[in-house]
């Protein structure tokens, strides 16, 4: 008995639509669960106070500082390195086997699990170089982790700048660097910024690599050699060890809001740039 294609179509719509609805519900559930339990905990005192009794009470201010400082250090190191590397690779070199190998290499490194960077960071920065559990160790490890991604996304953004732009610039007598500075970078900026923003988002949520390199000190860091705890690590410890469910949810809610804010800003910035161009 052959079922009429229109009936199959209806079933298909329902099933596919159901899948979409189900996925959205999961998303809403996850975010809603955390926000519902966490938002009531968030107050000015929670955000600016120091943790007391190992985090059972008090605020999470030092962890907010840690969450800002670690990705900041990583971005400061990795962004210029990454952008200029991709500029050099795409504008100043010819497409050779070597560049293909480098591209493949950075692609692979971008996919390496963060725990391996954590392992590397612990053995190399914390122990061998003697930096100890510190913002420096954590920042360097995160920088190395996001560098391949920044190189890759920058390169894609630079490549998407039309060849004609470059040709016009050269025909007007500009040098390579002037072309890069005045034509290519401004046009590739949306893509580059997106890559950087996504890397920031990833660094903020990163736990495995951070615990083993920056440690888990609850004290407000006073120098770059101090250990610090990020919100993600704080949430992990509070939740896992049952120190305070409430504060765990509060930390998670703050974390999610921060990450969502960064990603939304990235999108907004990108759409603004694209609108400006066209």
């Amino acid at each position: 008995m052959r079922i009429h294609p229109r009936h199959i179509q209806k079933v298909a719509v329902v099933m596919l639509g159901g899948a979409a609805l189900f996925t959205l519900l999961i998303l809403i559930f996850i975010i809603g669960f955390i926000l519902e339990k966490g938002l009531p905990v968030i107050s000015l005192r929670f955000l600016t106070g120091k943790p007391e009794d190992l985090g059972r009470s008090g605020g999470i201010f030092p962890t907010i500082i840690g969450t800002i400082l670690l990705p900041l250090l990583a971005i400061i190191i990795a962004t210029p390195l990454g952008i200029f590397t991709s500029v050099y690779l795409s504008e100043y070199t010819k497409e050779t086997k070597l560049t293909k190998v480098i591209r493949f290499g950075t692609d692979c490194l971008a996919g390496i699990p963060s725990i391996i960077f954590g392992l590397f960071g612990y053995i190399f920065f914390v122990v061998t170089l003697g930096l100890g559990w510190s913002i420096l160790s954590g920042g360097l490890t995160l920088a190395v982790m996001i560098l391949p991604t920044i190189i890759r996304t920058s390169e894609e953004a630079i490549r998407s700048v039309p060849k004609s732009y470059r040709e016009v610039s050269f025909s007007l007598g500009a040098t390579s660097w002037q072309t890069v500075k005045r034509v290519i970078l401004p046009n590739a900026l949306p893509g580059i910024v997106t890559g950087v923003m996504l890397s920031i988002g990833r660094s903020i949520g990163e736990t495995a690599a951070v615990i083993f390199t920056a440690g888990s000190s609850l004290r407000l860091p006073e120098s770059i050699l101090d250990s610090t705890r990020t919100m993600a690590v704080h949430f992990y410890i509070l939740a896992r060890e049952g120190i305070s469910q409430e504060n765990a949810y509060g930390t998670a809610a703050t974390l999610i809001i921060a990450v969502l804010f960064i990603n939304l800003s990235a999108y907004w910035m990108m759409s603004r740039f694209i609108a400006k161009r066209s």
Partner: protein
Amino acid sequence: MKLIGEKGVQRALMFTAFSAISALLLIALFILSEGLPFIFRYGIKDFLFSNDWVPQQGRFGIFPMIAASLWVTFGAMVVGAPLGVAVALFLSEYAPRPVMRVIKPTIELLAAIPSVVYGFIGVMVLAPLIREFLGGPGLSLLGGSIILGIMILPTVISISIDSILTVPQSYREGSLALGATTWQTIYMVTIKASKSGIIASIILGLGRAVGETMAVIMVAGNSVNIPHSPLDSVRTLTANIALEMSYATGMHRQALFATGVVLLVGIIILNSIASVALRKRMVKK
């Protein structure tokens, strides 16, 4: 900047590029230099296929962890791939464009949620459910697969949508003109045309699943055990590294780096397949 001149800038850029690439090379070499000698000394067969992981007695067989990583990733694929592709199809073929343009970035936001949050929800919500309705400790292969499956959804959905959208509208119009329904067009034309991109999205998602650490430590139970059922507790390669790395010394530490090498190889293989699939998609146009 006239001071430096064009040549100077070029040299500066070259130096930067060199430094960056050397840094990355350093890491790769570091991991290999710690891990490879161990593999050759211990014997690759024993390392990969022995069941005994007892570091205190110098036995470093990671087979249970390889099995766990493979099963958990497979489970994630079973959960995430069909669901993800279904959602991608719905959003690109049935949903009105403006709706898709709002929902796609929203789903991509899912990817930004830290993995520890997923893991926590797995422990507090999913594990008790599994314990109650299916038995076992709850912290299990099943729990890990479901959480990982959810975690890879944004990757699968986003890249699949990109891929489906590149199928020329003329293909669809041709099919509809011949009298096919939208659904028939989807499975006879659109899916076939975007197959490479969809496969690439799934493989990239699997790459993420293989590398996930925190969520699996929280939800999968961490037993060094070859799973006989989805309700068994398992320890993935990544969890093994995380649980033991802070105190491992000597051969034990090298064994962990060697585990890293195994993970690296797995991910390189996955990435290569994905990029071949993605390139196929480009060439077809």
